[in-house]
Every structure is written in structure tokens, then in C-alpha cells.
């Protein structure tokens, strides 16, 4: 089994076998994260630049820790996605970083397609850490690892993803990855937040949250991004919580052993109640933990790591 991808731009590009390889590799790295000395020399001498054009705490930290545990040199660059007229163009920034010979650029950008743009123009590997409303592949992969850990399998499971599907890169990456793994994906959100044609990507679209989560194995809540959604898509957060929020009563509709996930950060009391977020069925912190292992796997595989020693 070999990994052929130079870049990880999305889960759309990955095959079922690719995903299995990534998850298995991540599984083997998980053990490192529980050691006393959490460091292996695997990527020693490699340079990873975390180029973040959008605020991110969790994903950037997770990638940074992943790189450091593999002994790579990780550098964080935070830039503002400035307009074309002000500041440096994305291409110039990329070319300047490339001139310093990094091996991998991990990129977060508010513009959909920005990592694709970068990958076309530079010679090192590019890992997409989230672009606009397009893809967030490492999030989807850590979601799968978490589900597999709790359910022992992926194929045949039903996942309900609820929230702002239109603006969610997580929903798209999850949808591609989960359908490839033989899972059933249900999407549910307010009428203003379900993008046209999404069912053509293999999703089942629901307008009623109760129906969407009934008998689901996994309930994934998406963050309502107040700063992004403006005023026109929702009347109030109060009403949103009433119709699309996950609370204990509603969760009872899912399977007894259903797990609850959230890519974070949480809006407690909006899309998810604290009783659920902190409840027994919540695996939200497992997702965060698995994120490090999955990102280690991605860095390792993209660095051509199969021949390197673990």
C-alpha cells in the first residue's frame, strides 16, 4: 500500500484505501502521544510552515504539535488575508516561503481554493488546513478516526450532520470521506444553510432535525459562525437553538449508543447544550486528541515517510 499524494487538498481526492492508510498510520502514532517522551525522530530535518491566513487556535496548535512530535521544525506564520490592492499577493508570499525551502506548507485560508492555487505554484507539499467553505480534510479524517475508535467500524453507520452546511468546509470533507467509507450521511440545517445540489454528493438532506437524528449512530453538530453568517440567514440564535440545537431530549432520538461530535469551538447553548457537550455520549475531546495523531499521519505520509522509520 503506497501513498501517492504530494498534496492533501481535500478528502475529495482521497480513495477509500488512502483513507484507511491514513487512519491506520494515525492509529500507530497515537501510542506516541501517550508516552512519557512524546517525540520520535521520524521527520527530523524536515521544515513545516504553518501558513495561517485565518484565525485558528485548535487546528494550528494541533498541526504544530504533530510536527514537533515527529521532530520536524515547525514555523508558524500568521498573515491576514489582505485585499489584492494592499499588501503582498498570495503568490508572492508563497514564493518567498518556498525560497526558504520548506518541505510542507500547512495552509489555512478564508478563500475557497487558496490551497489549490498554492499547490499549482510551488514545489513543496501543501496540506489544506481549511479553505473557505470548501474543504478541511484533516478534520474529516480525525472525525473518522474517532468514530472508528468508538464504533469499531465505519461502513454501515449513519451520521447526522446538523448546522450551517452551506458555509461548512467540515461538512463537505466529512461528506466526501464518509460516503467513501460506506457510511450514510444525513445533512440538516435551516433552509438558508443547505446549499443547492448537495444531495448529488451523496448526502440525504433533512429539514427536520428530529428526523435527521432519529436512529443515527453519530450526531455531528456544526458551529454557527456568528461572524460569518451575518444577519440575513437566521432570525435569532434563540430560535436556532430551538429548532437545530442538540439537547438531551433530542439526543434521545438517536441510537442509545450514539456518539456526539463537534469540530469546535462550541457555542454552548446555541447548537449544543452543555448537558450534551459534557455528557457521556460526547466524544468531542477525543476528536481533539485524535487530531494530533491524524495530522502526524498526514505529515508523515506527505513527506514520503513510508521509507522513514517510525
Amino acid at each position, binding site marked *: 500500500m503506497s501513498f501517492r499524494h504530494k498534496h492533501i487538498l481535500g478528502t475529495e481526492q482521497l480513495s477509500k484505501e488512502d483513507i484507511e492508510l491514513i487512519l491506520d498510520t494515525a492509529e500507530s502514532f497515537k501510542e506516541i502521544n501517550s508516552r512519557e517522551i512524546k517525540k520520535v525522530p521520524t521527520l527530523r530535518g524536515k521544515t513545516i510552515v504553518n501558513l495561517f491566513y485565518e484565525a485558528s487556535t485548535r487546528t494550528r496548535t494541533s498541526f504544530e504539535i504533530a510536527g514537533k512530535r515527529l521532530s520536524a521544525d515547525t514555523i508558524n506564520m500568521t498573515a491576514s488575508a489582505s*485585499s*489584492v490592492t494592499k499588501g503582498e*499577493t*498570495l*503568490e508572492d508570499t508563497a514564493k518567498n516561503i518556498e525560497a526558504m525551502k520548506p518541505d510542507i506548507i500547512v495552509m489555512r*485560508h478564508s*478563500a*475557497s*481554493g*487558496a490551497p*489549490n*492555487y498554492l499547490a499549482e505554484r510551488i514545489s513543496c507539499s501543501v496540506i489544506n488546513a481549511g*479553505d*473557505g*467553505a*470548501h*474543504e478541511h480534510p484533516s478534520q474529516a479524517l480525525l472525525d473518522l478516526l474517532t468514530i472508528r475508535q468508538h464504533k469499531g467500524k465505519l461502513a454501515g453507520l449513519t451520521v447526522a450532520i446538523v448546522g450551517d452546511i*452551506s458555509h461548512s*468546509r467540515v461538512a*463537505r470533507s466529512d461528506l466526501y470521506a464518509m460516503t467513501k467509507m460506506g457510511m450514510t450521511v444525513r445533512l440538516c440545517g435551516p433552509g438558508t444553510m443547505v*446549499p*443547492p*445540489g*448537495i444531495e*448529488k*454528493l451523496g448526502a440525504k438532506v433533512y429539514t427536520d432535525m428530529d428526523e435527521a437524528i432519529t436512529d443515527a449512530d453519530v450526531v455531528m453538530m456544526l458551529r454557527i459562525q456568528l461572524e460569518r453568517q451575518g444577519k440575513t440567514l437566521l432570525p435569532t440564535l434563540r430560535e436556532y437553538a430551538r429548532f437545530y440545537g442538540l439537547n438531551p431530549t433530542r439526543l434521545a432520538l438517536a441510537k442509545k449508543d450514539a456518539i456526539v461530535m463537534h469540530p469546535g469551538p462550541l457555542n454552548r447553548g446555541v447548537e449544543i447544550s452543555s448537558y450534551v457537550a459534557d455528557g457521556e455520549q460526547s466524544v468531542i475531546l477525543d476528536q481533539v486528541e485524535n487530531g494530533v495523531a491524524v495530522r502526524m499521519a498526514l505529515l508523515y505520509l506527505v513527506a514520503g515517510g513510508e521509507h522513514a522509520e517510525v
Partner: protein
Amino acid sequence: MSILIKGGRIIDPANDIDDTLDLLSKDGKIAKIGKNLDATGATVIDASGKLVTPGLIDIHVHLRDPGYEYKEDIVSGTRSAAAGGFTSVACMPNTSPINDNKAVTLYIRNKAKEEGMVNVFPIGSISKGLKGETLSEMGDLKDAGCVALSDDGKPVCNGEIMRRALEYARPFDMVLVSHAEDLSLVGEGVMNDGFVATELGLKGIPWVAEDAATARDVMLAEFTGGRLHVAHVSTKGSVEIVRAAKKRGVKVTCEATPHHFILTEEAVRGYDTNAKMNPPLRTAEDVAAVRQGLADGTIDAIVTDHAPHHIDEKNVEFNVAMNGIVGLETSLPLSLRLVNEGVLTLKEMVAKMTCAPARILGIPRGSLEVGAPADVTVIDPDLSWTVEAAKLKSKSKNTPFDGWKMKGAAICTIVGGKVVYQR
């Protein structure tokens, strides 16, 4: 100085001619059309196997001059036009300064006259500064030489301003070219709203943004009795709205661009900024409706919406890239595809690129009648060639057709009896 074009198939829809004939131009005018013409001293162009048409006319072009000469100027833009077989272009007023006053109109006309390769007919703005707030001095603009009025690039959002513009322009017999778009429905959209936008995670521009604005402007034309020309229709709904309005006798005409009858939103995949335009590329269903509109006469004219942009404005993230593509040098072969695919007859296609647009703006061009200015295009309909963006005559190279194999090209463009382009 005389030119004798021999043995070509002359297609002159304005005069209902489609025959193998010779054409003689003398002193800048069409002197004679007939069989076996002879003219001593005339430059002879052998057009056997070629088409000879009135010089092509494009009534929707951005020459970017004054103000944005780094994208295009009147010299490079008209050179690009000549290479595409166009002998006349009408240029949009969204320059800097904006063509909302006589001085700018005169600047454009003078520069075009001194340095341009083809005829340039300026279009003035409907509202001062394209702001949609107060009317431009339409009478003054007409006197200075503007042939129509448009806020192209922007809609006239305020219904009352559009109503008053149609009323005020009426006695001056100026047509209003409407860029029909409801900006509140466009929002932050950057491509057609639909499945491809969903997949790419890009914000969509829904068809209703165009249809709703087209419907409003058509109704205002009906209400005021003013003359309306709907620019670059791209949706099935707009075509239907114009078709129905024409049936009711509303004074409305419309146009379509090659990119809207050749490409669909699929071209945006890969985040190709050369597939980013306004209106956006739509669905296959819309393309079929635009073609149907061209075939049944709902759509009167083919225009390019030639919109040059510098590489720095396109070589960026998709959502911040400028809208538009250059079109003058690819319009003819793309339009000929409609003929080859049976959508239009050759005569219909030529009409939509000559006499029909001339009639819409009321410019004395688009006909080969004796005494008319000798604007003539000789077309080789079988010439195979490949588009090379880098070799376009336009200053800007923003075309989605780079590398496309084309059939048909202008091989000689004559303006006022002078050869301005030869291939």
C-alpha cells in the same frame, strides 16, 4: 485608393444578399457590388472560398481608456478588434474618469480617430459617476457623440432612477443598455449559484438576481415607452422575459456573449479565474436557452463584453479576482460554432454581428450598400487555428479559451476602405 475583393461569397443581411460577387471600395465607400468587376489600379484581394461580410460590430466592449490603460487602451483595444474582424466597437463608460460627460466622450472619440484602428462609438453613463443617483447629461452626451447610455458593470438599482432615465432618454432617441442584476440578491456571490458552487465552496449568484432585474427593467420600458437593450443575458429566465416582452410590443432588444453560449459553470472547476465573469457562467440549461433565444430572434445581437484585466488581477484567489474576459479575438470562431452546430444560419449569425447591433444603437454601419462606409470583413470559415493567449493583440490575456482549437477567422479587416488587419 481602391480595393477590389474578388470572388468571395458576399453575405450582407441588411440588403438580403448572399451570393458570389465582387466588391469594389473606392475613396472609403462601397462603390460597386457585382459579377466580374474590374478596376484598374485597385488593390485586389482574392476572396474565393471566403466570406465577405459587412465589417463586424461589437456593441459591448471595455476599452479601459481613459484611466485603466494598464489593462487596455484605445489603440490596443481597437487593434484587438481589427484582428477579430471587427470594424466598429461601442465602448462602455466605466473608465476613469467615467464617461458621464462631454469631455470624456470627446477624448475617446478624438483618440480613436487619431490612433484607433477601427470605429469607436462611445456609450455614456446613465447616471453620474455610475452611482445610480442622478441622471447624466444625456443630451450633452448625445451631442458629443455617445450612441447609447449604460451603467454597465453596475445595475441602476433604484427603480425610479431607471424609470426617469428611460423617460428622459426617449426624446433623445437614446437606447438604455441595462446591466440587469439585483445586487441585494448577488450578495458576495462569485459564481453561478448551484451544484458547482456548492462543491467548490464558493458563494453563489442565483439566476433570480438577473431575472428579477431584467423583469423590472422590461416593465419599466413598457411603462415609459423608452427603449431598452438588455446586456449579456445569461439565464433561461431572462431570455423568456425578453421573448414575452417582445411579443407584447415592448421596445426591448438584447444581446448574448460567446462565453454564455459556449461555456457552463463547469469551467470554474479548478478555481480558474478566467472563468469568472459577470454575469457568471451558468448551467447547460441556460446555455441551451440562450442558444434558443439566438435562434428564434429573441436575442438580437452577439457581443463580447470584452473585459481586459491585468494578469495581477486574475492571478489571485478566486473570490478576489476581477470579473470578465477578453473576447474580441475569439468571438467570430465561437459564433461560427453556432452555425456549424445548426443553431443559426450563416446569414443569421452575420446579421447578429453586423446590421442588428448597428440598428440597436442607431449607428450608420453594418451594411454593404453602395455609398456606405467601406467597412468589410473577409472571413475564412475553414481556417483552423489554436488560441494562444500570449499572442492576443489585446494588452490583456485573460481568456478561458487559451489552447482551444478554433475553426474560422477574419483574414482581412477593412475600415473605411483601409486594410487594418490581414492574416
